[in-house]
């Protein structure tokens, strides 16, 4: 039932009516022809109806707080309540983004320190916190690459190279920044095809965008040679931080030779995903790209106070990316997370994320599943391919995913990366216990059994959720994007 179906004309949540306190509530006659004459069309419901409706809706969601969520590449780890509470202190919540620096030293101190922590964990020279999600961080990074070449008068560099296993945002971002995309093949072992790279890299190359560990769930072993190849040709190297959790505290992208990167704080720094956002995608750069950082950033004055740095301080900046200064509330949560973990805790993130992934991969292999890259060490995630099950039992990766929901586990990422047929990309994260992982393996073992003996049970799953499989074709054909409210 929709909130609109609870609506009755004249019903109201009376406590939310503001009385004009001591101000004559004159009609807005001075607005004249600007006045709205049509109805607003919002629902008319009581406060209890609202609370009950949205509480009930929430119960229809899977969430990390309720279940294991092994979504590959998404890093669905526990979101600490302490970080949420720290960002929800009234002084932070009520701070206006344009409040003078003198009245903002608390927030600025946190942002300044977070910049320093992020420089440290990535091995970069400078950081800007303003990008509001990974994709915007990518945009900032690639726009800086463009600005760098243009500043040098190097106008022929119009191509961005992207491995074929890359996230869809990589090519989409390159196009938004005005580049042409060239995809580089990946070998059977999951590495970038170095010969293919050498064949296309050249004076038209602006840069290469890479994730490492890659979306194949393996570490790109030739990264230093790749960096050398791209740099020798005059291009720059972009690090997509989507998989930073795998190496946090162990390996730094700056040391691998990357010139620019974004981090997904909603993954690596445990800020909540919120049902699809907000994210936060700070960018880090080496010395060459530092003059182009997006504004504003936070600097420290000689007297030890903090202040915003804008285009007057960073004249070659690519510019501003948000109305104010990014998803500040998410940055505060990430800052709190960093303080709770400290350097030692951060070192352990990559270690235990990797331990969990390798243990889960090994357990699933023993349960009869086929790993896409069995000869390789798993990083924080790995791929299972169900090509054989799809061929012989006609049970697809999507069927396995849907059946997992019945067992109370969120499905892994399905059909990504595109180059592995019928794949599940599985990422347990460091915050899951051995017992939780064992439970997941037991469910997967059971489903594999079902697929062989009772395939229809799997192909028609889920059976125990609020709805069965939805008609996506009808959704796109008979577009119904808003409830038709009857006045």
């Amino acid at each position, binding site marked *: 039932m929709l909130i609109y179906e609870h609506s009755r004309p004249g019903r109201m949540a009376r406590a939310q009516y503001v009385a004009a306190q001591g101000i004559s*509530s004159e009609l807005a006659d001075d607005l004249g022809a600007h006045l709205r004459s049509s109805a607003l069309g919002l629902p008319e419901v009581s406060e209890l109806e609202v609370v009950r409706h949205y509480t009930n809706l929430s119960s229809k969601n899977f969430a990390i707080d309720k279940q294991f969520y092994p979504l590959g590449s998404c890093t669905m780890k526990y979101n600490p309540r302490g970080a949420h509470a720290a960002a929800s202190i009234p002084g932070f919540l009520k701070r206006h983004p344009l409040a003078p620096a*003198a009245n903002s030293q608390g927030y600025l101190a946190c942002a300044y320190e977070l910049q320093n922590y992020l420089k440290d964990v990535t091995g970069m020279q400078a950081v800007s916190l303003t990008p509001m999600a990974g994709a915007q961080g990518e945009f900032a990074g690639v726009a800086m690459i463009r600005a760098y070449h243009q500043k040098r008068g190097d106008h022929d560099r119009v191509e961005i190279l992207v491995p074929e296993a890359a996230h869809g945002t990589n090519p989409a971002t390159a196009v938004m920044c005005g580049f042409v995309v060239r995809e580089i093949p990946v070998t059977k072992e999951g590495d970038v095809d170095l010969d293919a790279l050498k064949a296309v890299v050249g004076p038209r190359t602006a840069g290469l965008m890479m994730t490492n560990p890659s979306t194949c769930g393996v570490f790109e072993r030739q990264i230093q040679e790749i960096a050398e190849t791209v740099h020798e040709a005059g291009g720059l190297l972009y690090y997509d931080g989507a998989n930073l959790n795998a190496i946090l505290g162990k390996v730094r992208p700056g040391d691998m030779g990357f010139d620019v990167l974004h981090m997904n704080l909603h993954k690596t720094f445990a800020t909540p995903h919120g049902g699809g956002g907000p994210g936060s995608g700070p960018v880090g750069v080496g010395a060459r790209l530092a003059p182009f950082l997006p504004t504003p950033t936070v600097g420290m004055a000689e007297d030890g106070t903090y202040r915003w740095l804008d285009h007057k301080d960073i004249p070659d900046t690519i510019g501003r990316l948000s109305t104010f200064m990014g998803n500040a509330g998410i940055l505060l949560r990430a800052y709190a997370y960093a303080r709770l973990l400290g350097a030692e805790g951060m070192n352990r*993130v990559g270690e235990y994320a990797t331990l*969990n992934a390798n243990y889960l991969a090994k357990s699933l292999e023993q349960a009869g599943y086929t790993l896409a890259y069995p000869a390789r060490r798993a990083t924080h995630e790995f791929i299972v391919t169900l090509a054989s099950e799809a061929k012989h039992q006609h049970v697809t990766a999507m069927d396995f995913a849907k059946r997992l929901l019945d067992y109370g586990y969120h499905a892994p990422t399905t059909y990504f990366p595109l180059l592995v047929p019928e794949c599940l990309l599985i990422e347990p994260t460091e915050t899951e*216990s051995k017992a939780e992982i064992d439970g997941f393996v037991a469910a997967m073992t059971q489903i594999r059994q079902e697929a062989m003996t009772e395939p229809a049970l799997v192909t028609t799953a889920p059976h125990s959720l609020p709805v069965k499989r*939805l008609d*996506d074709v009808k959704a796109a054909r008979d577009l119904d994007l808003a409830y038709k409210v009857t006045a």
Partner: protein
Amino acid sequence: MPFIPHTASDEQEMLGAIGVPNIDALFDEIPKNLRAATLSEVPAGISEMALQRLMNQRARLDEVALSFLGAGAYEHHIPAAVWDLVGRGEFMTAYTPYQAEASQGTLQLIYEFQTMMTRLTAMDVANASVYDGATALAEAMLMAVRANKSNKSNRVVVAGNLNPNYHAVCHTIVKNQGLILDVLAHDPATGCLPGAVEAALEGAAALVISYPNFFGGLDDVDYLTDSAASAGALVIGVVNPTALALIKPPGEWGTRGADIAVGEGQPLGIPLASGGPYLGFMCCRQQFVRQMPGRIIGRTVDQTGKPGYTLTLQAREQHIRRGKATSNICTNQGLLVTAATIYMSLLGNEGLRQVALTAHSGTNALTNLACQIDGVTARFSGPVFHERVLSLPVDASLVVEKMAAHGVLPGLALGDWVTGMDDCLLVNVTETKTAADIACFARLLAEVIEEVKATC
């Protein structure tokens, strides 16, 4: 080990199952010379209690007693139920609703949000939100250039009285795709766009109108929309959702309405929180829906015919279309959409109207009181919505500095924002301000002006 549940025996069992002696061995494919990370800037970990103490100290530094600062982010009362519900783990810690059967809560909520936004703006369709108001406008510009079939222009005419930060963000985002942003200067006497715009609009792909504009003023949107229509340009309206409870929604501008409406959703139950996370909303005509970026939720049925909700029109998006997508955007501001939807449900038609009306009355009351101070005048005379430019007899930035030292943020000094407005203060009044607050503002303003005069 914060948030890592492994016991020593768990760890040993797991290593044994994998067949490696220790965790370090799991990193054996990484070249040795790269495995040298030592963190020197990150301090040692602290407890939650110590964190809470530190953050309380810092947050206190940012507290002010009273604020009249707006300029794109507005202090409103947020009903207690809003963040109580938003804070539920089922909303807060869910992922993007790709597995529709396990995400009906989020999906239905977004469908309700889309419905509310279409009604509030009087537009046909809405998406599930983008990052913030400024990026929503940038996406709308790119969308308009793609959607405008009547010309092949890359030129977008932008109202000169648009929030300068919006203009700056749009410039950053669209310049690499060859769009040209032409500023249509506002009349310095009125703060509004000029009465003749036909020449400026000739051959343009789109016109961007801000309603209210950066100064709080209300442009003649009917005339502007009709002029754009006859020039073959699409109309993008940048609107404040609270204002739409009182003033004309973009779908009703002129004879045919705006083509795309965008704006900042922060006033709908989202705290100021240093500028984000907020949400940018986007609405458009039905015919342009396939050019709209971002997530869109549709209602459909399941295998048994039961209604359900799912992501739809995904062929526009980067995870399907990669380099040919409408945008690289991958998230929406899901949690903020949750807040806005609950806020709009709680306020309803009359509640939101009262918020808007009270803010409007308060703004007029403040203007009247402030203009009794010697040398203070309203910079522009036309009607406004909840924001007004006051012209002061002294430099406005000095006034802001001195009033802020008393714990009162009087508004935004416009000198750094708009050329020739050093004496101007942009003041916002929402329903949160009482007559006593407004009187306090006026009293302190008068004092501080005298103080500044005395020191100059």
